[in-house]
Each structure stands twice: as C-alpha cells, then as structure tokens.
C-alpha cells in the first residue's frame, strides 16, 4: 500500500514539473512564467521531501526546510519589480 502511495506521489510530482515547464516555455506574459516558477518551487520542495523519505535520510528534509523558508524571496522581488518598487 505504501509503495503505491509513493508511486502515485512520484507520478503527480512528475506531471507537475512537466506541465509547469510547458507553461514556462509557452507562457505568453511574464506573469504566466512567474506563476510557473512559483509552482515549480512548491513542487521541488515536495520532491525533496519525497526523496528524503525514499532514501531514508532525514538530513534532506533540512534542505526542503531552508528552501521553503527562502523561496518566497525571488517571487517577492519580482512582484516588487513589476510594481516599479525595487
């Protein structure tokens, strides 16, 4: 049962990365690309957490934690840039 749940999570993460990269390639406006990057950040954090479970190493969770704390910075900077504030 746990194997199937992990496999389903891996397939969902795979599809998330694939479709977000597709949106990044096709994206008409800059906003579409920024939204794709933000989605990819969240998907990457879940991918690191899944890999930490699969590999059985809890030190990888620290990377996901640092990434989750710092990932808002780029999107915040882009938002400030688009509002002529930076």
């Amino acid at each position, binding site marked *: 049962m746990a194997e199937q749940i992990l496999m389903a999570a891996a397939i969902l993460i795979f599809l998330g990365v694939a479709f977000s990269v597709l949106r*990044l390639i096709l994206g008409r406006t800059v906003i579409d690309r920024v939204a794709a990057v933000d989605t990819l950040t969240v998907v990457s954090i879940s991918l690191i957490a899944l890999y930490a479970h699969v590999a059985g190493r809890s030190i990888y969770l620290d990377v996901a934690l640092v990434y989750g704390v710092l990932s808002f910075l780029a999107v915040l900077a882009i938002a400030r*840039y688009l509002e002529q504030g930076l």
Partner: protein
Amino acid sequence: MLELFVYLLCGSILVSGILAVRLASTLAAAVSGGLASLFAAVCYVMLGAPDVAMTEASIGSGLSVLIFLYAIRRTTEKAP
C-alpha cells in the same frame, strides 16, 4: 524511477538555460536563470550533496534573481 527524475531535472535545466538565452524580455530571462538554479539544487540533493543544494537554493535561486532585478531596474531608463 529515480533515474527518470534525474533525466527530467537535467532536461529542465537545459530548457531553462535555453529560455534564459533566447527570451526577449529581460525579466523573463532572469526568472528562467533562477529556475535553472532551482533545478540544479534539486539535482544536487538527488546526487547526494545536501549542503551544496542548500547553498545553491539560497544564493543561486533567491539572491541572484534579486540582484539581477535590481541591476535591470537601475540600468534601464523606461518601465518594462
């Protein structure tokens, strides 16, 4: 299954790099450059280097995009 993810991440790094070179908008190019760094960080985790991945995630994906946008704002005259 793990090899498939590494292939997907490497292909995404390639796509992000090509987009960063080819895109017309400077802002979109900076975003794509940050994304290549993001994928590289996940790739480092999968290759077994979590400390390198932590540094890459904080500096490459967060701080470099910020500095790029600051430089773009300071060196262009008109609004994008």
